[in-house]
């Protein structure tokens, strides 16, 4: 199982690149769902078949891989948007920024005072890179849905860090994090609905214009 970890994390990084480069919301949501599914395998690959790992994997799969993507796909079907409009920083520059931060994360992770068994694998750099990608999506995109995807990516990065620590972290903490995520997406869904009803579009830059 251990040799599965690096390909898994590599696939996670490639999905990061895809979400940064693609304008299609449906495809982006499906890729983030796939990332959630891959991350669900991660605790099992890292810690073997224990009850703790099974619970973590199953809850990640159900929430990140199935339930939240389902909600988001339903949302884009109802508001009938398919594509992201040209972002504040374009697709290619964000992709380049994403690749730079990923490379930076790999270099930076080498300088961190990690314990020996965490130093070798891709865990820490992947976690950092996924969080940076989430940040980039949150900052640069205009549609609220893509911003939610950014938030999900951010959480995925934290989840990868969490897997490293899952031997030490009690179950309650992880369950709490996942619950927070779900509530967060719910709240964003409600906000989304309001933005859509108010402006009949999901472009968030309208929010920054002042009313007279």
């Amino acid at each position: 199982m251990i040799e599965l970890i690096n390909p898994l994390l590599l696939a996670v990084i490639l999905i990061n690149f895809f979400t940064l480069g693609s304008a299609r919301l449906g495809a982006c949501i499906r890729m983030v769902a796939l990332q959630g599914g891959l991350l669900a395998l991660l605790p099992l690959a890292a810690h073997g078949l224990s009850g703790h790992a099974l619970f973590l994997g199953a809850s990640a799969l159900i929430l990140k891989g199935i339930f939240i993507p389902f909600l988001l796909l339903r949302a884009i079907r109802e508001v009938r948007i398919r594509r992201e409009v040209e972002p504040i920083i374009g697709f290619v520059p964000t992709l380049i920024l994403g690749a730079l931060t990923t490379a930076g994360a790999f270099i930076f992770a080498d300088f961190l005072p990690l314990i020996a068994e965490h130093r070798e694998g891709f865990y820490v750099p992947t976690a950092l890179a996924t969080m940076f990608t989430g940040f980039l999506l949150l900052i640069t995109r205009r549609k609220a849905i893509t911003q939610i995807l950014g938030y999900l990516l951010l959480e995925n990065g934290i989840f990868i860090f969490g897997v490293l620590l899952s031997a030490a972290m009690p179950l309650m903490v992880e369950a709490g994090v996942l619950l927070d995520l779900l509530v967060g997406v719910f709240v964003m869904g409600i906000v989304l609905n309001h933005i859509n009803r108010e402006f009949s579009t999901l472009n968030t830059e309208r929010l920054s214009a002042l009313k007279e």
Partner: protein
Amino acid sequence: MLGSLALSLTIHLTLLLLFAPLLQGVITKTKALFAGRIGAPLLQPYYDLIRLMRKGFVFSRTTTWVFQAGPVVGLAVPLLASLLIPFGALTAPISFEGDLILFVYLFGLARFFTATAALDTGSSFEGMGAVREVTFSCLAEPTVLFTLLVLARLCGGLSLNALFGSHLLDAWHSEAGASLGLILVCLFVVLLVENSRIPFDDPNTHLELTMIHEVMVLDHSGPAFGMILYGASLKMMVMGAMVVRLAMPWQTGWWLSDALLFLAGLIAMAVFIGVIESIMARLRLPRVPQMLIGTSLVSIFALVLVLR
């Protein structure tokens, strides 16, 4: 020494000259089968070449020698480049330190002559095609160089023979396997771009606004066009040799079985290209540079992985 050089030259050139057009035939056949048709015979590209070679030359009076040089260079360059690259486990006849740069820029030379030949006709339409071809290939070039750098880092040598040497099999099983997988995908994308295959360019299209490569060779006819077609299939085989060697790094030790393994790999690759062409739609033109920048970034990332 001289005898073995002559032998490997003969094997290399025989393989290349005989089997290159077959790949196009395999691709067309696969696409036909996918669409539920019987399709043209496998040897159709050979018949096309023979038919074109029997025709006469027609040259426009506005063109100069540049126009005639295009097809000649387009045919000569893949032949030269093939001598530098190992075909499967058969080592390249000519090899020296740093030949990877020569290999990459030989194709640059061919592109320059094809583009200037297109410009030489004075047709604004062909100029458009030349512009697109040059833009896309200058975006594809970093990807090739970075993938070769990854390989150079893994083996420590700088000749293509060393890069695609027998250490690849061990490298796949080591930590570097992940970056090898990444650069395999990158090289395959470059192969599709450079040979104007479907997600990037359609070799069969004759719709003016979307053609890339096809539009540059509209004014060539007869044997000149035959040379262009033959050169294109040689180029596909030479670039395919990199992909096949990377994907199938096995060797048997006997030259005949090595050659058969290589050909089997090439045919499998051609079938795969046919499948991709059948299931994918063409990318919109503005998406192509985006995709190419994406592959460059992935190959840089692969380099970072092997450097750490």
